[in-house]
């Protein structure tokens, strides 16, 4: 077994609010191997995007910071390297795709220039070389009419095409890790499927590990090998996608999965009412309290949930959940 390419150890990220600081990511640890897809799921405001930004070193300055823990990328701690080193890594070895393809491209440059720019910066290519390689990349992400499209401005492309350009930019330097923060939420369903097919294909080609942030269980099932369920800044369950989706252990995961209609094998004539998780994610002020933060929404909660933060409990190899009531 190779050493993991990314190893996050006890990462905590603090966010400053009016009421004081609260840990938006609380003691998060995970490992990512080369060529693997790891998915983060959870509701909005659970710290998924903050995790992504934390790895990229792009946490909003002044209001947030890594308060403890390490982000080891090939043995190098990204939480403590210099800005200059981070700039070398970003886009070259770790790159990121954003939620909004409509606004993630610079409107004043052609897409060819934007892709070529990254190649020139990280790979030291000259103008001509970078242009030719940009042409290849645009072809690789299956944008038709490549020769003309390379001279288009972002506003001349559709949303799906823009996201393809983003992917081309992210993969330009064949990064070791690709962080995809809800890459398809802004796109319609058919385009979504195409984008994921493309990502899968490129992953096989380049052996890039993908960190996929989403709240769509269907996408997780299709794309990822491992998944981490986050709730209120904490990891509540971790395991292979099969383990977690087939036999979710944490009540929150169970709730999330029972919310999704199309994961059943046979569609009954009369569908049962979908279950929902009552309540909402707790406010930032209660993040970091020494209790189970899901307690107020949980039907299984016992007294212990109120008095101490649940530890990680192993269920089977590689599958673990943070809950006091497993198996009860």
């Amino acid at each position, binding site marked *: 077994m190779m050493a993991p390419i990314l190893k996050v150890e006890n990462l905590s990220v603090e966010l400053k609010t009016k009421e004081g600081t609260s840990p938006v990511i609380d003691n998060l640890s995970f490992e990512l191997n080369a060529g693997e897809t790891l998915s983060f799921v959870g509701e909005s405001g659970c710290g998924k995007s903050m995790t992504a930004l934390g790895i*990229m070193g*792009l946490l909003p300055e*002044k209001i947030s910071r890594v308060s403890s823990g390490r982000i080891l990328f090939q043995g190098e701690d990204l939480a403590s390297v210099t800005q*200059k080193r981070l*700039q*070398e*890594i*970003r*886009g*070259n070895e770790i*790159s*990121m795709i*954003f*939620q*909004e393809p409509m*606004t*993630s*491209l*610079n*409107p*004043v*440059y052609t897409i060819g220039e934007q892709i070529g720019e*990254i190649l020139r*910066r*990280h790979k030291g290519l000259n103008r001509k070389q970078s242009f030719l390689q940009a042409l290849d990349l645009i072809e690789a992400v299956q944008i038709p009419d490549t020769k003309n499209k390379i001279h*288009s*401005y972002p*506003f*001349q492309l559709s949303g799906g095409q823009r996201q393809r350009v*983003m992917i081309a*930019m*992210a993969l330009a330097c064949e990064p070791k890790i690709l962080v995809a923060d809800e890459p398809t939420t802004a796109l319609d369903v058919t385009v979504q499927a195409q984008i994921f097919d493309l990502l899968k294909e490129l992953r096989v080609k380049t052996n890039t590990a993908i960190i996929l942030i989403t709240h769509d269980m269907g996408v997780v099932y299709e794309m990822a090998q491992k998944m981490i369920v986050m709730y209120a800044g904490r990891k509540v369950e971790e395991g292979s996608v099969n383990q977690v989706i087939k036999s979710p252990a944490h009540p929150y995961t169970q709730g999330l999965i029972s919310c999704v209609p199309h994961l059943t094998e046979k569609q009954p004539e009369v569908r049962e009412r979908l279950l929902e998780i009552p309540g909402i994610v707790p406010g930032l002020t209660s993040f970091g309290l020494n209790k189970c933060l899901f307690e107020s929404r949980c039907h299984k909660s016992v007294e212990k949930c109120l008095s101490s933060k649940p530890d990680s409990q192993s269920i089977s190899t590689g599958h673990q959940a943070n809950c006091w009531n497993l198996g009860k």
Partner: protein
Amino acid sequence: MKEKENKEKEEKPRHPLSEVFDMYIRNFSAVCAMFVLIVIIILAIFGPSLYPTDPFEMVWMPFSPPGQEGFLLGTDYLGRDLMAGLVHGARVSILVGISAAFMSVVIGITIGALAGYYRGTIEEILMRLTEFFQVLPTLLFSMVIVALFGASLPMIVIAIGLVSWTAVARITRAEFLRIRELEFVMASRASGASDFRLIFSVILPNALPPIIVQAALMVGSAILFEAGLSFLGLSDPNIVSWGQIIGSNRQYILDASYTVTVPGLAIFVTVLAISLVGDGLNDALNPKLRRR
């Protein structure tokens, strides 16, 4: 030909610059102003060689009214040819206008960009500095500079540039504050762009439209400023400029009003043309006004 153009229009979305051009062309007064401005600039560049009479040379009797003895605009109190003054002075006015505007744009963009990008303490310091320059009485300040360091052309440019960059700085800062929060800036940062690159090649090009408009308007005000300084006698005495002609003839304004009217009109027409061009650019570069 036209059909082909139309076809292309349907097939391909337009390039942003050609859209701006279209928008500008539709503005009648801006097109006229552009035409006038081009004529003035050509006059400034080629005029002195086409009309080589020395503007400082006494060529005829003083105060001969326009049209007499082949002197189209007459002569001033020393018998100097006013037409020569007008032609040769255009060069100085345009030169001072453009270089002072350029200087204030460079200062303004640098200060505004740094303040808007870095925020925090840097922004505080730079913005207080901007306010300091903003509240200075501009004419007085530039008079002091020129009086202290001598009335040479570069010094006049510097004096005008130093007092007029504040508007550019504020506009640039405002644009940076808006654009730095947009997603493509984050995306560029995620692809490893340095601060320098983010400021100058990611954010700045997107912030340019209002700055361009402001710069165009500033050329006009710089010309006025130069005229004002020359009128007060604070100009290079060896170089003729429109303001200087007005200034030196001001005592005779009642006896020979044409000596000040003609250069005054020249200043008026030039500044008006520049303002109208700036206005046209403003409309053309403002996406909200497009397609109406």
